[in-house]
């Protein structure tokens, strides 16, 4: 021990930025998600419905675009009968803008819903957050915990939503168009092209929604956090 005035305590041998193992963090997140199924179900539904909507729209349009590109007379006739084919560029653009507008609205609703749910979760768990801080966790760890949880939920919700959306989109195509014009290619194309986009979009939305609640959790002082009674 040094006798000179010091800011750092004796015995502090360097490694002050301890890296909490990812596996342990992930395990903790999973346990949390599992233990609060009810609460996370809300988030899952929220992101799931949004992603399903996005995926259904994308599936439908991927199939349409692919069919539209074919020169087959019969396919064109089917598309026209379904009112799904038009050579009019202007009205196509207008439709696209409408879609983007509706999807954006859905995204905003989704973000609001998830943020609200996560804020409630932060309040519920503030005692836990305070305890973690008392045990020597850095704010960065709390951030990581909450973001990773939202990432997990976002992935699960988006994957489920994408599956439902895909089925809806295919069903729409099968009902509106003639099942005979659909080939395996039309079934695989949306899965390959649209599904990754939908899942990524849903996950990103969830993590964005979690940003503010996470910030609230990280910035709580331990005393404040433990004083909150739920």
């Amino acid at each position, binding site marked *: 021990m040094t006798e000179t*005035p*010091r*800011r*750092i*305590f*004796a*015995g*502090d041998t360097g*490694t*002050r*930025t*301890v*890296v*909490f*193992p990812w596996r*342990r963090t992930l395990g*903790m997140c999973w*346990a*949390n998600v*599992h*233990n609060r199924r009810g609460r996370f179900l809300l988030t899952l539904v929220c992101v799931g419905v949004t992603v399903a909507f996005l995926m259904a729209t994308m599936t439908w349009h991927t199939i349409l675009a692919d069919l539209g590109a074919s020169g087959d007379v019969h396919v064109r006739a089917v598309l026209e009968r379904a009112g799904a084919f038009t050579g009019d560029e202007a009205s196509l653009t207008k439709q696209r803008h409408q879609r983007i507008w509706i999807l954006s609205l859905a995204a905003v609703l989704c973000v609001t819903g998830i943020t609200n749910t996560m804020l409630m979760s932060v309040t519920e768990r503030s*005692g*836990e957050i*305070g*305890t*973690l*801080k*008392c*045990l*020597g*966790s*850095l*704010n960065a*760890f709390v951030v990581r915990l909450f973001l990773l949880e939202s990432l997990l939920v976002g992935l699960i919700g988006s994957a489920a939503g994408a599956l439902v959306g895909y089925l809806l989109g295919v069903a729409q195509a099968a009902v509106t168009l003639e099942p005979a014009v659909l080939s395996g290619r039309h079934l695989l194309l949306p899965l390959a092209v649209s599904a990754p986009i939908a899942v990524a979009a849903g996950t990103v939305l969830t993590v964005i929604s979690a940003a503010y609640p996470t910030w609230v959790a990280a910035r709580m*002082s*331990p*005393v404040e956090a*433990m004083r909150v009674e739920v």
Partner: protein
Amino acid sequence: MIGREIVRTQDVTKIYRMGREEVPALGGVSLSVHAGEYVSIMGPSGSGKSTLFNMIGGLDKPTGGEVYIDEVDIAQLGIYELAWLRCRKIGYIFQTFNLIPVMNALENVTLPMVFAGLGADEARDKGAALLARVGLGDRLNHKPGEMSGGQQQRVAIARALANDPAIILADEPTGNLDLRTGRSIIDLLSSMKAERGVTVITATHDMKMLAASDRVVWITDGTISRIQRREEMDINVGTIDGKEE
């Protein structure tokens, strides 16, 4: 057996702001605690003892005055140093146990070790040994919800000792426990003090705590009204409610 000063507060004041009103919680508390001492901060609720407790634990910042832990002014510490202090220097015990509900006893105890950078195997062994020491060697895989209050508080004590802290801060450790369980928790704390030489500071209004304490600091209205050593206490124990000085 007076060791070096491990905790010292110097004219610590705390004023809470409630909207426009200022509520004084502490009005200049100077106190020093020596290494290896068992000190109880006694006082009714609202007396400021929890506030003082939070100041000593580095959980809250004083409005005025300084708190020194091991001669380091903790107001000067950055976030890393503060986290380090909470992780290794101080072990906290709470009235409501505050175990992480999704983790079993062993995981709860090893959590601070992971924060301190201990390897998984080492942490496991040490955690199991600590749990065995507090009498829960057969409860390693129980979740907090599957344990009684007394058992949970034992886990909390094992967790507080995880990184061999110099100080154990216990806020109403017996507050949620029945008489007998509370008694056993106090016994456990005093034997930890004896075995490990750890300094124990409790904020409490549990009179059972008196007998275990080396010193009792009475807080009234945010100031120290008197400090009693154990020797003096034996005389006064029957007339605790009396206000004689």
